[in-house]
């Protein structure tokens, strides 16, 4: 049993390492492709590659940081050159890429907040597109845009964990029932059937509560 567990952990470790290596190498390749496209003057292609690099996020990978820095530099350069529309596109890409890699935490949250401030300022500086915004001072439009960008629509972490625990419990209970509560002569071991059945029902109830509250 111990040997099987050690082997299982070894195989799992190798699989995780292989996936991590693949993700890290892809992120690195995308950063290089982005830099090459930028050197050629193809800003759109560079932005696409940097965005992909951020999406290939993995722990301890410096490529995501490099891609985000390159995107920020592109946005600042566009803004300095008076191309506010492209700068806005880049900051929006920074924000959406960081939301795409959000999990329990938001990686590079300070960059996300900075991108939101930039987006709000740039949106306010552009001509108003809706009637209600016409005549409003730029500072007001900027603060309204920032409030809208920072509105928290994320699912609750606590209820997400409750939901996952409930799901794991009822699926685990089903496997427990199948593997342990049914005897070889196809009759039920009542004690095990009752415990695994209760696990399924309780897990199912917790799962539903999690789904409702998330």
């Amino acid at each position, binding site marked *: 049993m111990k040997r099987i567990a050690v082997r299982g952990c070894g195989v799992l470790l190798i699989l995780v390492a292989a996936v991590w290596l693949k993700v890290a190498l892809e992120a690195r390749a995308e950063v290089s492709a982005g830099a090459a496209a930028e050197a050629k003057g193809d800003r759109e292609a560079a932005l696409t590659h940097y965005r992909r690099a951020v999406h290939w996020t993995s722990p301890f990978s410096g490529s995501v940081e490099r891609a985000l820095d390159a995107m920020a530099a592109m946005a600042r350069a566009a803004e300095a050159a008076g191309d506010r529309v492209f700068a806005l596109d880049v900051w929006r890409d920074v924000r959406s890429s960081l939301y795409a890699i959000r999990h329990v935490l938001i990686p590079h949250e300070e960059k996300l907040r900075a991108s939101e401030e930039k987006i709000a300022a740039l949106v306010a500086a552009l001509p108003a597109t809706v009637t209600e915004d016409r005549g409003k001072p730029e500072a007001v439009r900027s603060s309204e845009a920032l409030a809208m960008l920072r509105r928290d629509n994320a699912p609750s972490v606590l209820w997400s964990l409750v939901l996952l625990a409930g799901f794991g419990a009822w699926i685990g209970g089903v496997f427990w*029932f199948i593997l342990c509560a049914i005897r070889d002569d196809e009759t039920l071991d009542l004690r095990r059937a009752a415990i695994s059945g209760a696990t399924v*029902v309780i897990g199912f109830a917790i799962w539903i509560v999690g789904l409702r509250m998330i």
Partner: protein
Amino acid sequence: MQVLGVALVVLGVFGAGWGVWISFLPPESASRARRWCGAVAAPVAIVAALVGVVLCCLPNFFSS
């Protein structure tokens, strides 16, 4: 839809429990037909419970 969802969940959970219970009874305790009935009812009840969860937790899932 919410009420239907809750009803399906409750019926599904009890139906699945009843179906599994009946289908594993020994031949001397239940007829072959009853055990077959339980074996068919259990998966149908599980599907009903899952549809109930969708109705309860994902509003407008079955309508655009």
